[in-house]
């Protein structure tokens, strides 16, 4: 059987002032009708470029310099823009990562659908409307007659992605290119969308190229997979074969970096393919900390933080005529204790209030009611400035986005030294010495201190964030989705650093994540939150083995099935 699309030795280059950047280097790929072909790789692997190259939407100045793309028996890489456009939409559909931005906000769903249908299929308005309803029904939009007249902002993220899929299927394409279609969605929605894509593949005999960074998605959805690394095909074959028995070092490293939901590993087996993993010795840092003014108590099971009936209500702005403003209860009667030296996890989907809790603990938000006590002393409401400063120094935060959490106009050295100087812990000279030490510990050299944040990769920046958080020698570290913006192998390194830190320094951590496998690897106890309520609070192993709450059970069920069987990773750990 001849494949639906065949790519032979495709080369895509981006010429620039600094020389030619080769985005794709001799890529070959075959996709059959009725199958889902995964393209997996980390950022910079060129996986999205493949899709753009096929439909001729490479961004300037990128262009194809060698190789061929044969679609449905026709060579299309030499097609003119005009005939490519005819192909786009009609024979090849595309869906993008972010359903929130993929739709024109000013047109209704029906307008966008019928416009595309009329253009491609030359239908009359009435026929187009019928087809529009049929498509919406097919992607499981309830009540399509009414919802077709909605604007994109009236749909949830998952619903919008369904609309996007409907748009891509407008004129019965043979090939669907899905570029990270579920990355921006919650796990529960992700599972539904993947299910939908799988179903459509079979019912329409579609060929699907599924671009993703997520091994779980690959394992769950694809028939075949191609692993890309820096523009080159590393490995290709049946999904099951590759996941069970990866041949290439990069695939092995990638698979071993995926956090596992089934059991806790002491450390992530090393993932050194892209950036060096640091197995740093933090013990001399411990000596410093012992000497510091704040007493460090290790292994004492006293509560370091007690949160009691915490509430946070946001008011929507009331207007002149509707006197009563709406109240959104972001956090509702949440209570928990964090023991000294433990890693306390908070898990939940978007809108669960997990980040709001973190912001109240760090006193970025003032709680509507409730109490937070640190080492037995209340830190909410009006408290003496000395106590507040002490508390702030003892609790530090690491944010999700390493790009926006650092001032781009400050040197790394000054960024890390800022909290030290703020709390008067050292004079400027000593502070810089401390900064150098911290930089070494997180695996950067001291020269890095003189650079600016934009000169670092995402993973390196997150390390800098960690160094900044450690600068004041805190007792409680709050990590709000610290790795969800990072590639898996980088995530593994960052989590390793956090694990080492926690172990050596006896740091207490509150670890917030939407990712259950990551929670499993990091946390001792976990709180599950949904829509502002704390549903369940228990030991991590307990939660994964015998969840009490219905919602927890659903969440656990939705984790993309573990990509690897235990044996292969275990053997891999011992061999590396």
């Amino acid at each position, binding site marked *: 059987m001849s494949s639906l699309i065949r790519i032979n030795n495709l080369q895509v280059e981006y010429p620039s002032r600094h020389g030619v950047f080769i985005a794709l280097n001799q890529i070959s790929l075959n996709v059959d009708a009725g199958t889902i072909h995964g393209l997996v790789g980390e950022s910079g692997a060129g996986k999205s470029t493949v899709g753009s190259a096929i439909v001729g*939407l490479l961004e300037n100045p990128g262009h194809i310099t060698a190789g061929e793309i044969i679609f449905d028996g026709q060579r299309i890489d030499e097609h003119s823009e005009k005939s490519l*456009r005819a192909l786009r939409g009609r024979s090849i559909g595309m869906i993008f990562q972010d359903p929130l*931005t993929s739709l*024109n906000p000013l*047109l209704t769903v029906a307008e966008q659908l019928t416009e595309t249908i009329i253009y491609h299929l030359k239908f009359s308005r009435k026929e187009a409307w019928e087809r529009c309803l049929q498509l919406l029904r097919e992607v499981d939009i309830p009540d399509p007659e009414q919802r077709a007249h909605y*604007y994109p*902002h009236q749909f949830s993220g998952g619903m919008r992605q369904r609309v996007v899929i409907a748009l*891509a299927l407008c004129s019965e394409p043979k090939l669907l290119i899905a570029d990270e279609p579920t990355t921006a969605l919650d796990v529960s929605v992700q599972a539904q969308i993947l299910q939908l894509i799988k179903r459509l593949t079979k019912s329409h005999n579609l060929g699907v190229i599924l671009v993703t960074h997520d091994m779980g998605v690959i394992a769950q959805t694809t028939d075949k997979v191609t692993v890309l690394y820096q523009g080159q095909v590393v490995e290709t074959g049946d999904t099951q074969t590759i996941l069970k028995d990866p041949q290439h070092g990069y695939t092995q490293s990638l698979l071993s970096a995926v956090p596992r939901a089934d059991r806790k590993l002491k450390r992530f087996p090393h993932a050194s393919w892209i950036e060096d993993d640091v197995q740093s010795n933090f013990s001399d840092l411990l000596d410093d900390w012992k000497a510091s003014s704040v007493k460090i108590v290790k292994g004492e099971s006293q509560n370091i933080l007690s949160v009691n009936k915490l509430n946070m209500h946001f008011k929507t702005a009331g207007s002149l005529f509707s006197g009563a403003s709406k109240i959104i209860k972001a956090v509702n009667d949440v209570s928990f204790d964090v023991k000294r030296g433990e890693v306390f996890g908070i898990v939940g989907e978007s809108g669960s209030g997990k980040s709001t809790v973190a912001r109240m603990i760090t006193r970025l938000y003032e709680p509507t009611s409730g109490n937070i006590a640190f080492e037995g002393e209340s830190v909410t409401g009006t408290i003496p400035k000395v106590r507040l400063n002490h508390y702030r120094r003892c609790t530090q935060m690491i944010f999700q986005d390493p790009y926006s959490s650092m001032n781009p106009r400050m040197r790394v050295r000054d960024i890390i030294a800022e909290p030290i100087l703020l709390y008067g812990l050292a004079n400027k000279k000593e502070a810089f010495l401390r900064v150098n030490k911290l930089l070494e510990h997180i695996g950067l050299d001291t020269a890095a201190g003189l650079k600016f944040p934009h000169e670092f990769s995402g993973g390196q920046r997150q390390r800098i964030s960690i160094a900044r958080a450690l600068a004041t020698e805190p007792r409680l570290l709050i990590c709000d989705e610290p790795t969800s913006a990072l590639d898996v192998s980088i995530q593994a390194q960052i989590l390793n650093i956090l694990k080492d830190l926690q172990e050596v320094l006896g740091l207490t951590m509150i670890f917030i994540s939407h990712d259950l496998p990551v929670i499993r690897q990091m946390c001792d106890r976990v709180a599950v939150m949904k829509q502002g309520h704390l549903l369940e609070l228990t030991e991590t192993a307990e939660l994964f083995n015998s969840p009490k709450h219905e919602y927890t059970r659903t969440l656990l069920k939705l984790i993309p099935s573990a990509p690897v069987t235990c044996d292969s990773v275990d053997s891999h750990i011992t061999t590396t």
Partner: protein
Amino acid sequence: MLKFLLQRIVQGIVVMLVVAFVAFCIFRFLGDPVNNMVGDSATEEEKEQIRQQLGLDEPVAMQYLKFVSNIAQGEFGTSYRTRTSVIEQMKERLPATLELSFISGMLSILLGIPMGIYSALHPKSWLSKQFLVGSLMGISIPTFLTGLLLIYLFSVVLGWFPSQGRGGLVELGWWTTSLLTVKGWSYIILPALTLCIYQMTLITRMVRAEMIEVMRTDYIKFAKARGLPDRIVQYRHGLKNSLVPVITIIGLQLGSVVAFSIITETVFNWPGLGQMFIQSIEFVDIPVMSAYLIFVGAFFVILNLLVDIAYAFIDPRLRVH
């Protein structure tokens, strides 16, 4: 939507009350209105009589209320300079200013938006670069200089258009228009061009910046990936989204076209409200000045209201609340 409109109207009324208060203060406290009205030979008794006639012996709050209710009834008092009713004087000059502003506003929109679109879609073309250089000049050169240069070129050197005044008038009730005759157009074209250049360059640059931004968004990429033709992608998806922020600027700019046509009207001796305002300043004609203030305030408030309505019309996300 209705609630939103009502809210905006109430806000507008509050703004107008504040403007009226400022106008009232100018009228009441900038010099003694009685002294300004009567001649030097008037006796104290006569002055006292006028004072009572005008209600100036009443408490200030009462006077303000009266002032507001007079304005609401279209009663703006009597000009010190011409001794005629201020409202009559304004009514006479209003058509000139509104027509000038309207023509220059239309010119700047009709020229500015296409230039913006073109230079956004073809950023590297020769013409786009000329547009940008030209718009830089338009922003940099002050209005009075543009006016003088246009007069020199088109009236003095080429002799195509008259340089002064307003002509070719046709009366439609109390409204006099110069838009119905060729002669009338020849009078209005130079001042309108002068007034529009600044707004036009601003609109060009806004449209260009917004459109370049919009053409980079995901939904444009997705529209292209669906194989839609350029025409639909660029206009139906691109332009409409770019216009949302541009509308605010256009609204505010049109307001300032009317409010600041003073300079252009002076340069071209255009018999509009701006010229009237300049003359009233020279004569310290306070009733006219405060009436003009209220007029400009009202104009801005109404334009803002229209902009809000247009916004809600274009952007469905604003319609929900």
